[in-house]
């Protein structure tokens, strides 16, 4: 349940592009054609799924305050969290290189389809953003971090796919000249972001969730009452 909630939350409610504007540069630059957008989106899913869990491990066992206790009691009050930027970005850069080498060796087809996008991803804000939000939201377990990386990647993929499809269509429309290209893309993204805000009510945490549960429980009770009523009516019909 926890996993399912995080999954939908990262795809729709906290969508990387529409809620936090991460990875906007490549989102705007590589969304002219659907086919290239799919390639980049797939690469982002892949790299996020790999780097967020690794950075979670780094955060838990090296960076956080008191994380070094596994080395010995005298390390208990070290707080290395100021190093997190440099460590995260180093992990991302090396992982991207590694992934590139491994993919090239074992799956040339995938390598060719991801093409130039893999190395570019090291500087995609969405990747570092994934790790930084993972850190600031204090995700609890390794599995949840894996889930978070994967589902944020899917959210980004969906966003770039949608805008690429719209941009392919909009080529045939009569857009005011100064808005052509970048301007209209910005405005469309804004409108899409407004649309995505409606997902905000899909999952509400804390008190609201508890309230909803009690509400739905009350509804279930009502439904049961109705059912018994209709059943009684049916029975009385039959006896008549």
């Amino acid at each position, binding site marked *: 349940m926890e996993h399912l909630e995080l999954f939908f939350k990262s795809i729709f409610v906290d969508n990387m592009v529409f809620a936090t504007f991460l990875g906007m*540069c490549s989102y705007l630059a590589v969304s002219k054609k659907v086919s290239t957008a799919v390639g980049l989106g797939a690469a982002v899913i892949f790299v996020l799924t790999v780097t967020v869990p690794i950075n979670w491990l780094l955060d838990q066992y090296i960076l956080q305050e008191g994380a070094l206790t596994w080395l010995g009691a005298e390390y208990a009050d070290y707080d290395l969290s100021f190093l*997190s930027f440099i460590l995260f970005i180093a992990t991302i850069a090396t992982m991207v290189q590694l992934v590139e080498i491994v993919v090239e060796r074992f799956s040339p087809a995938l390598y060719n389809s991801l093409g130039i996008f893999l190395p570019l991803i090291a500087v995609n804000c969405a990747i570092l953003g994934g790790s930084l939000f993972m850190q600031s939201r204090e995700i609890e377990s390794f599995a949840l971090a894996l889930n978070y990386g994967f589902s944020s990647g899917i959210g980004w993929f969906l966003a770039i796919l949608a805008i690429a499809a719209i941009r392919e269509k909009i080529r045939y429309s009569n857009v005011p000249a100064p808005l052509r290209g970048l301007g209209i893309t910005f405005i469309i993204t804004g409108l899409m*972001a407004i649309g995505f805000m409606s997902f905000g009510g899909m999952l509400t945490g804390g008190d609201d969730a508890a309230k909803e549960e009690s509400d739905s429980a009350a509804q279930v009770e009502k439904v049961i009452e109705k059912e018994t009523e209709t059943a009684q009516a049916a029975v009385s019909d039959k006896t008549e």
Partner: protein
Amino acid sequence: MALLSKKDSKLILDPLADNNPITIQVLGICSALAITAQLKASIVMSISVIFVMGVGNIVISLMRNIIPSKIRIIVQLVVVATLVIIVDQVLKAFSYQLSKELGAFIGLIITNCIIMGRFEAFALGNGVWRSFLDGIGNALGYGVILIIVGFFRELLGSGTLLGFPVLGDPIAKSGVYSIGYENNGFMLLAPMALIVVGIIIWVQRSRNKALIEEN
């Protein structure tokens, strides 16, 4: 501008308008939009980026002949990450509240495409002084857009500037609120940043027809 030759001053002035990093080069949008709901955050962000870009361009330009081209991205990332850690620690020390508000977005200066973009396009091939000017110029161009967006979003969204109420008091119905004006809370939401930037692009390109894209 007696200090700078004509060519050098062009390096600073060009990115402010006709070669703006945000509206023309499409760089550095990632961290630009999310923090512009308030003018103060926009200004702090601009100053941070000016510092990181100025110093970063100097460092990269100094090292440009000894960086092996294969691993230059990692070298660049390490330089930027170090500078951003300095900015982050300074902010935490002197303005903890603001540093909390900006949150992960200070860290995201590292992957701000504007920085990597200028390293790649300029600092790797030019001398120290020119690289420094280019860095400052582009960061200023970025800051200008950030401050314009932040100004309009804060003014229209909450009726304040830098936290001071400039349009009167919405609860006591003084100032412009007395004639029925209401704050547009929508401006504070994230999507409006995109639309405001879209409008800035629109205005800029209708004034300078040369910038209009084919499609």
